[in-house]
């Protein structure tokens, strides 16, 4: 595992971008682009990442970046990959499709499912900030239960879609779950995915100060708290082999270090959540975490 001091000093991120203060995407994008050594084409639908990338005629990241329509991420990236093969340029760069949770779990899931079934040659990375943050915090299929959004004013009633599990069901060679709050975990997973072929799926929890309603200085703290509470689990599945990674692997030995109640108390989006709902989510987390522990134990 790469140590934080071993991460590349050079960044492909240019000084200044249009992301909100404390946005988790920027922390991770630096590691993602570094892990690909800048030899990538980033395929990006409408999302917060579009805003971060910049408005014509300026850009904030020195990589080839192709903006494409909201539902089309995995299909457009399939086309880029096919085009590069047809042009004899496939070895020049990794195709990195990078979309938000709405663009992945909701409007983009058909194209993603098709690309996964065809095992298209790309890394698909979903940065999951758990709602439509770019359009003003509307609920997505990835919004957690209890979260207030501008379309779930009294708190979302349902649990989020488990997109990594959906991708596992497509039998792709590499599925990983990570967090923007753990740069080395992000770096290692992207670097590993770079060395593989076919469709590689990485799901990255990405704290959002404006959408989750917390102080921008707490992005990393809250991202780590989500892992400590077992709401976000760091793992990878390579050719069917499951392993917890990083902090989650340590928590498997020590036990979870935080509760759902502690986690939801840190964010405005959960304000006023009833004890019953908190208990319901805690039970859901406990059951899910127990399932991960069983998988880790090879059961």
């Amino acid at each position, binding site marked *: 595992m790469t140590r934080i001091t071993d991460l590349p000093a050079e960044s492909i991120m240019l000084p200044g971008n249009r992301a909100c203060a404390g946005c988790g995407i920027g922390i991770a994008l630096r590691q993602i682009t570094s892990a690909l050594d800048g030899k990538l084409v980033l395929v990006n639908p409408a999302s917060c990442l579009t805003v971060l990338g910049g408005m014509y005629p300026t850009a904030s990241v020195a990589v080839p970046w192709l903006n494409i329509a909201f539902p089309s991420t995995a299909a457009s990236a399939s086309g880029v990959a*096919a085009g590069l093969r047809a*042009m004899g340029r496939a070895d020049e760069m990794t195709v990195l499709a990078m979309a938000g949770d709405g663009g992945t779990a909701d409007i983009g899931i058909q194209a993603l499912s098709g690309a996964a079934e065809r095992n298209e040659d790309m890394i698909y990375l979903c940065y999951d900030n758990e709602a439509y943050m770019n359009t003003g915090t509307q609920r997505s299929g990835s919004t957690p239960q209890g979260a207030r959004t501008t379309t779930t004013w009294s708190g979302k009633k349902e649990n989020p879609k488990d997109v990594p599990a959906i991708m596992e069901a497509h039998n792709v060679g590499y599925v990983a779950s990570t967090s923007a709050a753990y740069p080395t975990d992000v770096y290692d997973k992207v670097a590993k995915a770079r060395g593989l072929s076919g469709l590689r799926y990485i799901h990255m929890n990405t704290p959002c100060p404006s959408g989750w309603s917390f102080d921008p200085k707490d992005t990393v703290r809250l991202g780590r708290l989500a892992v400590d509470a077992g709401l976000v689990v760091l793992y990878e599945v390579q050719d069917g082999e499951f392993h917890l990674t990083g902090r989650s692997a340590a928590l498997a030995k020590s036990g979870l270090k935080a509760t759902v109640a502690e986690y939801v108390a840190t964010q405005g989006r959960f304000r006023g959540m009833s004890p019953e709902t908190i208990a319901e989510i805690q039970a859901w987390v406990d059951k899910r975490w127990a399932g991960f522990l069983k998988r880790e134990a090879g059961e």
Partner: protein
Amino acid sequence: MTGQSSKGNHVSVTGTATVMTGNEAAATAAKLARVQVVAAYPITPQSPVVEQISAWVESGELPAEFVAVESEHSALSVCIGASTVGARTFTATSSNGLAYMTEQVWWAAGARLPIVMCIANRAMAAPWNVLNDQQDSMSVRDAGWVQLYCRDNQEILDTTIQAFRLAEELSVPVMVCYDGFLLSHTVMPVELPAPEAVDTFLPPRTDGLQVIDPTDPRNVGPVVMADPRPDADGVMRPGYMEFRAMHQAAIVSALEAVPRIDGEFGEHVGRTWGGLVWEQDLDDADVVLVAAGSITTQLALVAEQLRQEGMRVGVLGIRCYRPFPAAALADRLAGRSLVIVFDKAMSYGYEGPICADLKAALYGQSDVPAVFGTISGLGGRDTSPEDLADTTRRAVADHAAGIRTRPTEWVNLKMTGGAR
């Protein structure tokens, strides 16, 4: 086609005579064009185009990438991705498939990608109907693609090859439209051009080859604001509206490029198709029948028959519908008594799209003829020369009775509720 058709010099250079369907002609054209990436999703009546292409790719006869996607939206998305990195790309669809990819129809145009797409024209649902009319492609006429309409299978083959030249020269996508079943599934004699002749006419794509390059990174298609903004060097760059104006200029330049490229194709392959519009028996015509696509074959027969009855009838066929050849049409229609437009699509709440466009093209001109709009052939309704001749006779009689404007006539409407 009979009479003085502007099909012009139909001289075989090195071609091979065969017979094939319109769909086979479209697939063959894509192969002759040496397409590099094809993505498609099945829909009747287009499916045989991509079935044929996938067979050629699997057998190695066509060295290309074939991506069998999960939807039409993704089909055009794949083409957008592949075209952006410099590959020559092709797809085909019909009806609801085209409607489903509409977002990407706009995207491909705005991104100025030289994608060629064949449309086997089919009626729009609901209700379901797999048969022909032109509502599908007419409904995306405003999206910024060049739209070419074909009369027969030879024209499908030749026009699809020409479309790549046009698309890559102007950096705009091109739609080649042909009537579903009437052409897509009908076997006709077709002369295959020699591959060498096509290669000379259509060299490999050279535009936009290094748009995506890690050693020279660019952000392609980012957010563009309303007004021009300075780049990092302080140089002003266009705003959204400037880009749209550039797009319009590129599309309009097809009014020059379509006939020129048609002519160059003729030099290499031995056939031309009239460029923007073509005509039959038009010089002395008092009554002109205007349409696009295969219905013009019936209209040509109607004109011949009515001439035998003493009416001076001619046909003006629209090959290029977008950009709209307003000047060419106005020039050839000035001074006539009556123009009858045979639309196979409807702008619901108004009239047929060609009719409305043609009236606009004639506005402000001198010696403007009366223009009567008709709708025919929706959802596969037969467009027999007899019915079209009757429609023409009634229109001529109305005109003789002093009528200069009429409600749109629905031709061959068989039950109550419609006009005639």
